[in-house]
C-alpha cells in the first residue's frame, strides 16, 4: 500500500471496486499536517470502513447516526474549546465531518444549518453521489432531474426524477460562512487546494464534491475519473469557490461539451435516449446552461 496516502485511512475497506470516495477522503485528510478528528454520517463511507472488528481509520473517528454528523461535530468543537480552556488540550485539532448527499441535502440539512449558523470551527465535506447509494440507489434531494433511481424510477409513466436537485451551495452560502467550494473527485489537485484553504479558514467551511458512483450510476468500475471529468466539461458540475461572498469559477471548459456526452455514459440516464424522453435531455441542457450563465454573472459581479 502507499505509505503516504494510507497514513490516515488504510486500505482493506469494503467500498465498491472503482469507488471515488476513498480518494476524496485521502485528499482532504492529506491537506493538513495538524491532528484531525473525523465525524461521519451513516452511509457508504461509514459502513465500508468500520465493520467490527476492523476499522480503516487511523485518525480519531466517530459515527453516531445518519442525519446528525454536523451536530456531532458541533459537540466535538465545543468539547475542544472546553478542553483548551481547561488546559487539558494544548493544540486544537481539525474537525472534519463527512456526509453523503443523503445525509447532507436531506436528513442532515437541519443539523448542518444549525452548525453553520452557530459558527463552529469545522470543515463539512459532502461526497455527492446523487442518491442514497448505500441503501441501493434511492433518490435524494441531490439526485439530478431525469435520473432513474429506485424510488423514482423511469417507466412508461415516468422519466425518472421529476424535480430539479437542491442548490445546496446556495443554501450553505445563505448562512454567510467564509469559505465554501464545489469540487469534483476527478480533479484531485483542485480538491486538495480547496481543502487546504477550507482547513485554514477559521469557523465553518463546506466542500461539495461530486463522486460518480460506479455501482448505481451504472458504469464500468474503471470510469469514475472520466465521467467526473465529463460532468465538469459539460458544465453540469462546475468547479467554483465562494470566499466571503465572492464567486470564483476555477475552470471554464474551452470546448464545452453537450450534456448528452455526460448522460450517455451512465445507465441511470439510459432511458432518456428513447424518442419520448428527448425533451428531458433538452430540458437538462437548458438548465445546465442557465445555471452556468447565472454562475458566471455572480463571478463577474464579485
Amino acid at each position, binding site marked *: 500500500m502507499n505509505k503516504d496516502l494510507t497514513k490516515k485511512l488504510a486500505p482493506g475497506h469494503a467500498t465498491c471496486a472503482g469507488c471515488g470516495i476513498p480518494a476524496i477522503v485521502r485528499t482532504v485528510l492529506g491537506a493538513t499536517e495538524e491532528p484531525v478528528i473525523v465525524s461521519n454520517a451513516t452511509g457508504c463511507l461509514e459502513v465500508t470502513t468500520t465493520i467490527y472488528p*476492523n476499522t480503516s481509520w487511523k485518525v480519531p473517528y466517530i459515527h453516531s447516526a445518519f442525519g446528525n454528523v454536523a451536530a456531532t461535530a458541533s459537540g466535538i468543537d465545543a468539547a475542544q474549546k472546553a478542553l483548551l480552556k481547561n488546559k487539558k488540550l494544548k493544540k486544537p485539532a481539525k474537525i472534519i465531518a463527512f456526509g453523503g448527499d443523503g445525509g447532507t441535502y436531506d436528513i442532515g440539512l437541519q443539523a448542518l444549518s444549525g452548525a453553520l449558523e452557530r459558527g463552529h470551527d469545522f470543515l463539512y465535506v459532502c461526497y455527492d453521489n446523487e442518491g442514497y447509494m448505500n441503501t441501493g440507489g434511492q433518490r435524494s434531494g441531490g439526485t439530478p432531474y431525469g435520473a432513474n433511481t429506485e424510488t423514482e424510477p423511469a417507466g412508461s409513466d415516468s422519466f425518472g426524477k421529476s424535480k430539479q436537485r437542491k442548490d445546496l451551495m446556495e443554501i450553505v452560502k445563505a448562512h454567510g460562512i467564509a469559505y465554501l467550494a464545489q469540487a469534483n473527485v476527478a480533479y484531485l489537485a483542485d480538491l486538495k487546494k480547496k481543502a487546504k484553504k477550507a482547513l485554514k479558514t477559521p469557523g465553518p467551511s463546506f466542500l461539495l464534491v461530486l463522486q460518480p458512483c460506479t455501482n448505481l450510476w451504472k458504469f464500468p468500475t474503471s470510469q469514475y475519473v472520466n465521467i467526473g471529468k465529463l460532468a465538469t466539461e459539460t458544465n453540469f458540475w462546475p468547479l467554483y469557490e465562494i470566499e466571503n461572498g465572492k464567486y470564483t469559477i476555477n475552470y471554464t471548459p474551452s470546448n464545452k461539451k453537450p450534456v448528452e456526452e455526460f448522460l450517455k455514459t451512465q445507465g441511470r440516464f439510459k432511458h432518456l435516449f428513447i424518442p419520448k424522453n428527448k425533451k428531458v435531455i433538452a430540458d437538462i441542457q437548458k438548465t445546465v446552461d442557465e445555471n452556468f450563465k447565472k454562475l458566471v454573472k455572480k463571478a463577474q459581479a464579485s
Partner: protein
Amino acid sequence: MKVSFHFVVSLEIIIYIFMEKGGIIKHNINNAPKTGDWRFMKPEVDASKCIGCGSCIEHCPEAVMELKSRKIKDKNKKIIEIDYEYCKGCGVCATVCPVKAILIKK
C-alpha cells in the same frame, strides 16, 4: 454433550471479556480483509512505458499504487508498483494513465 456446551459458552465469554467496550475499536491492519481477493481482472504496469508521473496514485480507491525506484535497462527509474494484497482490480489506474502504461489482464 456437556463438554461441548461448556466449550461454546466459554468461547463466547472469552470473546465477550476481550471485547472492546461500546464497540470502540483501534485500527489493526490484520483485522482488515485482503481485498485483493475481490479481483477478477488484474492491472499490470509496463515498466518500459511508465514515466513515473504518479497520476494513478491518488485516484486509486485502495491507495495501492506506489512509486518505487527500479533499475530498468541499467537506468534508475521511478516506476509504479501495485500492492496486490488490496488491489480490487477496478481499472481506474489504467484509465488515468497518460501513456497507457497499465494493462488490465484477466
